[in-house]
């Protein structure tokens, strides 16, 4: 055997065979992520359309995605709910699925887009060592959901440019004409440069381009949807690593700032701590910025909740990281931050005693406190759901547009107490245990 292995051709053949076997096993595993998990809309669904109706070249491509319409039949405004902008942010996806499977409109209509970037659901990011799926228990059994990447699969769009330039020029003339105030501090067309990989991050390529890359066309189609369907309030769900400063926050276009701030106060009454950030004018390509600039009729907001599984400090990859939001590494960081701040305070005191100015008095490594036991996906999903409900309430209170009425959505406390799965269909489409209405 060893003698045979010393022969160059035999050795090459054995190694080649081994490489092919590895390639086959890996291919089957990667391909398994291309299988979509079923979603079960609430019985109040009125219509399903494809996004390509708003930009036909998208038809038949893997990025064409379902839009679920829930029309109350009563005149009113239009609410757009988006999940899966970044498929590695599972509570964002789950919150949109939660609405999809429970929503009932009483005034106006809702459009739910649970898989905004289907191209991100097809793969996981290299070097992030993520799982491909996670499970949510329901009273009828476990539901599986895919855990993807924040960017479109390179199989669909490749190679990345060295530097990505956002194509925002397409609506520039309208902005100059209709909203000259928005040109102040605004980098303008062809001026926003980003890392090359962001060319596949749909939340950096808005407002997209009708003849651009497939991700730019996806972004363009979404903007067309917002414009053609005259969306009034648009909510985009995300999650962020605990060390990322924009966390537990509503990021609002300046026109949506009042609605968001009032919702923040209403959420304080629910014991949900959240803050409002106004969308930066010089960081282009994001939903809360470009949707609002492209369509003066829409109030766009983006919601962030903390997720340890996408952090740079994360520990060993486990399903608990995603579902229970628990990670011993982050618990250690919490402890390290406390000890570091004690040391810094003591150091600052000593320096001040000697008449010197300390360089650093305290440091935030984490922008979210990770409680013992983690931040469960039920809590993160419930935050998004409750924030959406309060945003709708705030929008109606302030008469920010035609009224929007949403019924049949459980409160934050109920979702946390019963678990998200209690309100989802079973793995075979069994009705949710927490369902209020009749079934399809």
């Amino acid at each position, binding site marked *: 055997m060893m003698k045979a292995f010393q022969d160059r051709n035999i050795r090459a053949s054995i190694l080649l065979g081994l490489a092919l076997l590895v390639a086959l096993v890996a291919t089957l595993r990667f391909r398994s992520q291309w299988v979509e998990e079923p979603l079960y809309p609430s019985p109040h669904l009125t219509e399903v359309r494809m996004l390509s109706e708003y930009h036909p070249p998208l038809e038949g491509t893997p990025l064409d995605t379902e839009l679920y319409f829930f029309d109350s039949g009563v005149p009113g405004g239009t609410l757009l709910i988006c999940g899966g902008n970044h498929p590695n942010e599972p509570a964002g996806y789950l919150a949109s699925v939660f609405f999809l499977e429970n929503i009932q409109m009483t005034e106006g209509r809702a459009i739910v887009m649970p898989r905004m970037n289907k191209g991100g659901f097809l793969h996981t990011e290299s070097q992030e060592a993520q799982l491909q799926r996670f499970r949510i228990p329901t009273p009828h059994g476990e539901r599986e959901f895919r855990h993807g990447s924040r960017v479109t699969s390179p199989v669909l769009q490749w190679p990345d440019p060295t530097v990505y330039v956002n194509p925002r020029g397409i609506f520039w003339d309208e902005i100059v004409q209709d909203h000259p105030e928005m040109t102040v501090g605004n980098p303008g067309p062809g001026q926003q440069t980003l890392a090359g990989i962001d060319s596949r991050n749909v939340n950096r390529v808005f407002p997209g381009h009708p003849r651009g890359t497939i991700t730019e066309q996806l972004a363009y189609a979404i903007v067309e949807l917002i414009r053609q369907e005259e969306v009034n309030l648009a909510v985009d769900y995300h999650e962020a690593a605990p060390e990322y400063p924009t966390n537990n926050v509503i990021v609002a276009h300046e026109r949506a700032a009042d609605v968001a701030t009032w919702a923040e106060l209403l959420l304080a009454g629910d014991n949900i701590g959240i803050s409002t950030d106004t969308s930066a004018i010089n960081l282009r390509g994001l939903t809360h910025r470009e949707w609002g600039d492209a369509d003066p009729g829409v109030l766009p907001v983006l919601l962030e909740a903390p997720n340890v599984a996408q952090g*740079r400090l994360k520990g060993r990859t486990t399903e608990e990281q995603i579902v229970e939001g628990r990670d011993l590494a982050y618990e250690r960081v919490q402890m390290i931050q406390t000890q570091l701040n004690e040391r810094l305070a003591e150091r600052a005191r000593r320096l001040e005693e000697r008449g010197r100015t300390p360089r650093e008095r305290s440091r935030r490594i984490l922008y979210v406190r990770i409680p013992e036991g983690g931040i469960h996906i039920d809590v993160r999903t419930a935050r998004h759901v409750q924030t959406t409900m309060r945003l709708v309430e705030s929008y109606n209170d302030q008469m920010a547009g035609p009224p929007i009425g949403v019924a049949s959505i459980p409160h934050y406390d109920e979702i946390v107490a019963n678990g998200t799965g209690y309100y989802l269909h079973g793995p075979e489409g069994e009705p949710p245990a927490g369902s209020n209405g009749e079934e399809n």
Partner: protein
Amino acid sequence: MPETVGVYELTVFSVMVAAFFISAFAIKLPIGISMAIGAIAGIVAGGHLFPLDEAVRHLVEGMFAYFDPILIIAAATIFMFSMERNGLLQVLTSWTLRTFNRAPFVLLAAITVIIMFPGMLTGSSTAAVLTTGALMAPVLMHMGVPREKAGAIIAMAALFGMAAPPVNIPALIIGAGVDLPYVGLDLPLLALSLPIALATTWALAMPHMDKAATAESARQVEAGPAARHGAKLFLPLIVVAVLMIGERVYPEYIQLGLPLIFLIGMGVALLTGEKVSVHKVSADAMKAALPILGILMGVGMFIQVMTLTGARGEVVIQSLQLPRGWTGLYPVIGTTMPLMGSVSSFGAASVLGVPFVLALPTGPEEIIMNAAALSSIVAVGDLMPPTALAGIFAAQVVGEKKYIRVLRWCIIPGIIAVVQGLLAIQFAPVLAQYLVRIGG
């Protein structure tokens, strides 16, 4: 303080490192294979071997992390070999020496900027070494610069080119991690790269400059038979330069990507000089490039498994525990970033650069200065073994078999570059006033 240390993570990491060292130095397997064995050892020690197809998926996913740089390196090496074989290199050396032999100080400055140029455009030190670095290598050596020092000059200039504006990929990656637009970085990056690049070349080369010897050398260097092809011999260089610049200036029209640009350059080289066999030049180039391509694949697997087992997070956590200053965070930045850069400077920018920039003051101008400084420090990682991209290829273009001999001369400039970056962080508030122009 044992409770702040991840025992599991560090144990697995130790096993990975031990497996790598045993494979590389005891069994003397190639570095790339040894990295892969380290990764497999991590999977086994971390308890991630089953399900087996999931373990294989992680290894293959990691292997693809540097797929784009692998293509760039392969194509650039083929381009370099074709320029050498068709006679261009010799003609250019002869012409440069004859024209500039009386002004070595100016010539050395010009050589530095020429070597930096592809790195400035592409953000890749490898692209710089294998293109203009390869062109300037014989010029430097004919001027009397010893082989090892010529390699060091090329490696350092390429590395500073990678750190120089307009394209600094680590800065883009750090910016993407903290939502910092790629604006206002040009002057800080130029200040941190160009002066030190020129100083390095002069310091290494000037002691060997002897005008009479250079003039004598210029007389002796024959242009070779390729001179009969005249100006058209330079066409491959012109085509590659035009396409590289075109991609930056007109990204909406030219998006070929570096690998294709280099292959087009090779195609032109085949038609414009001495007869070259496509098969032979490609095979020889791939033979030369294969070890480094293997290292990049092995490194990708290694980092993927570090992330999978939490070892990557642990490295970051342990790096963030110290207060700012020369007795705390700065030495940690100065050592961990280049060290992790030894595996990948882009990976280090993402994994360490983002937490570090958040651990430093985050005022609007200071954060830009700090991001620029961190990106210049991380670039030094391209000199660190085992990958040592800049060093390995610089040794190759000057014909030095042991790249450590080249790296020896890079140690002092490398340390100065790191200290310069740390000083820029220390004096960021002052420097930012002069160097950072965010604009309207």
